[in-house]
């Protein structure tokens, strides 16, 4: 089977768009990505559309009503925070199988405000605060504390993730926050769930991103190989059984499972990855994933963030877009926005935040429930 390429990709600036519909946001991102490829909706043979908030209401078909109803197959995906990456991967599978040559992948989300979480109830009674907590911040706080338990990782080390990613966002005109947050400001912000302050929680925003996925044959025929991005690995896993994951979601084991499969599929090792957009839904998560993705040894994340090696200009820049913490986290859009970010660096078009000379990059998301999707991309 031949390789699969991204030949066009873009995203709208993440932010709050109370007066715009999900389909309008999705259509804008799609048109930007089509323009990037120099193609139109009539060139697309299928649409894979990721959205969580309106997952039961045919978002992809509604986007087509704003793009042109060409009658192509539309597949809607919902997979928690891995929704966008799942839509992209369905497009990759379709091209890889040889069924299509050109497909459109969209991730789009309109978020509310406030804490995310299941809002679990049992026997009709809301159990939040009575039987522990099910908010996303409390879950990732508990997972951060697990890291502290194992390796002594400190509140300050977790907070440094937010300092770094907010700094990165100042160089990204598509990010929500675009503001510096010194360490003291991060650590003194409202405590949500120790060790997570408000500035260590990702920001709920509206957003959309899109990618045009293409067969090698078609990319060559269209003369689009010059800016094409090769998909070296596309992996999706669900959480394997671990002794505590029925009581607290385990995003470590599922990421390790996916990372192993992705490195094997790509035929590269962690030392060959030159930038990573990983799932920093909370500051604790970024450090957990340093070791899960094997860019440091187990127990090494605290020292790695202290070293500055994951900042722009460091050995392995992580979340130079600003990440979910500062660019924002519109659930269904995040996975494809990550693809856009890494592709933009591999094309050498990332401006002030460009990771110089990057040829191979990785995207990573996890979804509550749980799942993990990883893509490894390479300049063609």
């Amino acid at each position, binding site marked *: 089977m031949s390789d699969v390429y991204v030949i066009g990709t873009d995203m709208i600036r993440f932010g709050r768009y109370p007066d715009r519909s999900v389909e309008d946001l999705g259509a804008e991102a799609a048109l930007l990505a089509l323009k990037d490829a120099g193609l139109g909706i009539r060139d697309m043979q299928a649409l894979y559309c990721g959205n969580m908030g309106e997952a039961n209401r045919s978002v992809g078909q509604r986007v087509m009503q704003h793009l042109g109803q060409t009658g192509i197959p539309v597949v809607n995906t919902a997979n928690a925070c891995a929704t966008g990456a799942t839509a992209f991967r369905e497009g990759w599978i379709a091209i890889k199988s040889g069924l299509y040559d050109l497909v459109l992948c969209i991730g789009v989300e309109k978020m509310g405000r406030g804490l995310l979480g299941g809002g679990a109830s049992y026997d*009709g009674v809301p159990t939040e605060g*009575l039987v522990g907590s099910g908010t996303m911040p409390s879950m990732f706080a508990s997972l951060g504390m697990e890291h502290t338990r194992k390796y002594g990782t400190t509140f300050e080390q977790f907070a440094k993730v937010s300092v770094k990613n907010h700094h990165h966002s100042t160089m990204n005109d598509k990010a929500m926050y675009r503001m510096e947050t010194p360490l003291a400001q991060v650590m003194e912000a409202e*405590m949500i769930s120790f060790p997570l302050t408000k500035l260590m929680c990702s920001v709920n925003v509206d957003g959309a991103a899109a990618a045009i996925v293409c067969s090698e044959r078609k990319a060559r025929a269209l003369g689009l190989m010059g800016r094409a991005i090769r998909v070296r690995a596309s992996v999706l896993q669900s959480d394997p*059984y671990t002794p505590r994951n029925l009581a*607290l979601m385990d995003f470590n084991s599922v990421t390790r499972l996916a990372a192993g499969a992705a490195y094997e599929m790509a035929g590269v090792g962690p030392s060959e990855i030159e930038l990573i957009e990983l799932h920093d839904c909370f500051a604790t998560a970024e450090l957990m994933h340093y070791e899960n993705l094997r860019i440091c040894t187990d127990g090494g994340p605290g020292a790695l963030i202290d070293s500055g090696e994951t900042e722009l200009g460091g050995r392995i820049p992580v979340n130079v877009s600003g990440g979910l913490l500062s660019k924002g986290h519109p659930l269904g859009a995040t996975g494809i926005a990550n693809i856009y970010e890494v592709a933009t660096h591999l094309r050498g078009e990332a401006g002030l935040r460009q990771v110089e000379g990057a040829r191979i990059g990785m995207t990573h998301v996890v979804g509550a429930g749980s799942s993990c999707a990883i893509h490894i991309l390479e300049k063609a």
Partner: protein
Amino acid sequence: MSDDETESLRPLAPFVKIGADGKPYLEGMKCTSCGEVLAVGSRRACPKCAAVGTLEAVRLAERGRLYTYTVVRRSFPGVATPFVAALVDLDGGGTIKGNLIGLNCDAIQFDMPVQVGFETLSVAGEAGTRHVRHVFTAVVE
């Protein structure tokens, strides 16, 4: 408690059961194939080894050790804070989450031994029903 209250007592977690004597206890599942002990209700196959029809109800220990926790300062609107959301490994197997109560936050330590207790609550529900929740308290060794 009176007989009326006993009859209407209802658990707030799948691993909490109400005994014939009206006293709550913890019950999970044990896989007869792989031996894993799970703090879950009934299911068709073992989540660890995938063997079908091998899970049998088993009494879970009401002692355990604190694995991880967080002090929740802000939760969903209307939920009283702060509280300590804890994850406890029960002696003999099974991990459950719940509130750790009666401790100053500074006194909490990983691996500290805890006792599972039960509290009866009057929360919104069918008229006349009362719910029981499990809580963790520190054990002085």
